[in-house]
Every structure is written in structure tokens, then in C-alpha cells.
């Protein structure tokens, strides 16, 4: 669960982001001090066709690959449309804007402040993590998937 005292922002680019742009943006963001959590949102890119006549067939997609962020491998599972951030304080926002200005050269973007991350554990979270779940992990990964969040160290 998210503590209300931490501000959150949502970066909304005008285009869906390529893995290269995502990698460049995230590396600029993790270099900004005061970023607690990062969440990538967008339409999912499954490894196999999930439904239809070709169900189960392999689904090669150039937008789904592993990127390197802050020295860690991150497997992209979505075509990135939004980047949600939880910050230590509002003072970090100018640094985030500067990172966006550097990363987005071909198209525009906007940064919105608000509450964007999950605040309460859902039934699926409860089934996956149990009653004593680490609250900072809720909403960080799809509870139905086997993947977990990537922890990037060394920036604080």
C-alpha cells in the first residue's frame, strides 16, 4: 500500500515508447535522487497468442525485450504508454521533467501529479502475497504472473 505522504507522478508521452527510449528514460530517472518506485503501464505484449484461432502460437514482437536499467535487467511485458513514479518529495519533480526533456526529443509529453499506484491489496494480491505482504510491493507486479518487481540498488 502506498503511503499518502509520498507524491506520485505519471509521465504521459504522446507516443508509445520503444524499448530503446524506455531504457534511456528509465536510466535518466533512476539517476535522479528521490525516486522510490517506478511502474511501467501499457497494453500487454504476451509471449504467445492468448486467444483467437492462433491461440498458443509464438508471438515475436520487437517491442518486447529485455532492457538494462540501473545495472539490472528488466523484461518488458508491455508496450510502454505510461511511466508511474512514486517520489520522496515534490522537490524531485523538476529532475523528472529534466529527464523527460532529455529522453523525449521526437515528440511531446506531459507530467501529471496525483495518485496512480494501487493503494489497497486486492483479493488477487491477498491470494498471492498473504495477509502480511510487504506493502511497498503491492501493485508493483501483476499478482497473477510469476514475475516480481525489479529492485534497483545503488542509487540512494
Amino acid at each position, binding site marked *: 500500500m502506498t503511503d499518502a505522504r509520498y507524491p506520485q507522478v505519471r509521465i504521459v508521452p504522446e507516443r508509445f515508447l520503444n524499448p530503446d527510449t524506455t531504457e534511456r528514460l528509465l536510466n535518466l530517472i533512476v539517476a535522479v535522487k528521490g525516486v522510490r518506485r517506478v511502474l511501467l503501464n501499457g497494453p500487454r505484449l504476451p509471449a504467445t497468442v492468448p486467444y483467437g484461432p*492462433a491461440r498458443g502460437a509464438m508471438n515475436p514482437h520487437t517491442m518486447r525485450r529485455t532492457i538494462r536499467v540501473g545495472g539490472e535487467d528488466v523484461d518488458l511485458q508491455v508496450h510502454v504508454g505510461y511511466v508511474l513514479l512514486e517520489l520522496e518529495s515534490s522537490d524531485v519533480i523538476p529532475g523528472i521533467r529534466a529527464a523527460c526533456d532529455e529522453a523525449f526529443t521526437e515528440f511531446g509529453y506531459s507530467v501529471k501529479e496525483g495518485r496512480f499506484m494501487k493503494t489497497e491489496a486486492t483479493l488477487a494480491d491477498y491470494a498471492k502475497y498473504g495477509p502480511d505482504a510487504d506493502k511497498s510491493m503491492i501493485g508493483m507486479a501483476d499478482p497473477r504472473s510469476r514475475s516480481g518487481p525489479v529492485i534497483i540498488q545503488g542509487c540512494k
Partner: protein
Amino acid sequence: MAYKAQYGPGSSIVAENRRKYMNPGYKLEKIRDMSDEDIVLIMGHRAPGAAYPTAHPPLAEQQEPACSIRKLVVPTDGAKAGDRIRYIQFADSMFFAPSQPYLRSYLESYRYRGVDPGTLSGRQIVECRERDLEKYAKELVNTELFDSARCGIRGATVHGHSLRLAEDGMMFDMLQRCILDKKANMVKYVKNQIGEPLDKEVKAGKPMDDKWLKAHTTIFHSLGGVAYRDDQEYIDYVQRIHSLRTKYGFMPVE
């Protein structure tokens, strides 16, 4: 009766395009050249060159009941041969795609015989006899009704109509049936419409630029295009129909 179809109201370029595309008297501009084989490969209903599977014997070989309507209506080539019913389905980006689902259904009904168009919010399917379908699909894909980046041929997993575009200007496609070859500035289909890999790439032409798209689009869009509210004639007409239908149902009286 000296009645001349008007097809639709509106004074904007969007309304004008809608009228043009629906009017069977207007010759659609050909902008790419996909072959019969390319169309067959993308649709994936049969192997190129294979015989058309049939759903029933040819009409000439079966006993037709004495029926005045059957004498009146000339069957299409596909119906004559007893072809199966097959489909092609399109998704069109709201970012200035030349066509959109409702328009596709209207224009197909005006222009083609023996079709069953189905309109959904973000996709449009048209079903008909297989050999008729190939003929119609070729026109739908090779003319100004289609843009290789903003329109997609998608039998399943069609999501993309209302999403932002990718960085290269392509509409989102979870199955990435087509990719943009940046060097050649050419869109190539690598999977058929249901997402099965193709043995060879099918070239779908170059993506059209923004100027062309805005001149040919049939979608109102307040961000960068013609806003619906700016076309007063369209608004007046729709409000009039709405008012008459509300007051009088299917027997409007002014």
C-alpha cells in the same frame, strides 16, 4: 424517380471524404499495388493457387426451386460457384485513418453485392463468398481507403484503434502483424490476419504522411484535425434526425 443520393451531410473535408467513399460513382484512387496472392496470404483462408473449397454444389448443378426472386437476383460469382463464406476484418486508428468502421460498412453496402458487413467500435468485419471477398478486399486495401500504418488487417486481437501510435507512427498491434521497414519506408506483413507467421513478407506499401492522411481521413478529431463541433451542418443534421426520431419514432413528420 429523379432522386440523387446525397450520402451524408457536412461541409468539412471529413464529410466530403465520407460522401466520396460511399458514392459508388466515385472512382477510388489507387495508391498501392498488392497482388491477389498477397491478399490471399494476409487473409489466410486458403493457400495461394489452391482451389476454392465449396459450401454447396454450384448453382447450375443443383435443382433450384421455381422462385421469382431467384430469377430476379443475379448471383455473384462466389455464390454461383458455391464458395464458402469468409471474412476480412480491419482496425482503423483514430489518428486520421482514411476509413473507420461505420464508414466501411456503409461504403461496402453501397459498392458491393452479397456482403455482410459488421460494425464494431474499433474494428469492422465484412463477410461474403470467398472469391468475391478477394476481389473486394483487393479494392479495400489497394485504394485510398487504406493506409498501411494507420489501418490494420486483423482477424483477431484487434486492439489499437483508440490507442496512441508507436514512435514510428504505426498503430499498436499486440501481435505485430506488420512492421515498418524504416530503410525502405515500407510496411511489411509478417503474419496473416489471425497472427500466424507468413512464409514470406508481404509488402503493404509505404505509410502515408500526415498531410495526405488529414486530406483523406473520415474521422473527426479535435486534436490536430477537424473537430466534429466545427462542422455545423453535420451537427444540425444529426440533431434534426435525433429530434424527429425522439418525437415521432420511425414515422417522422415535420
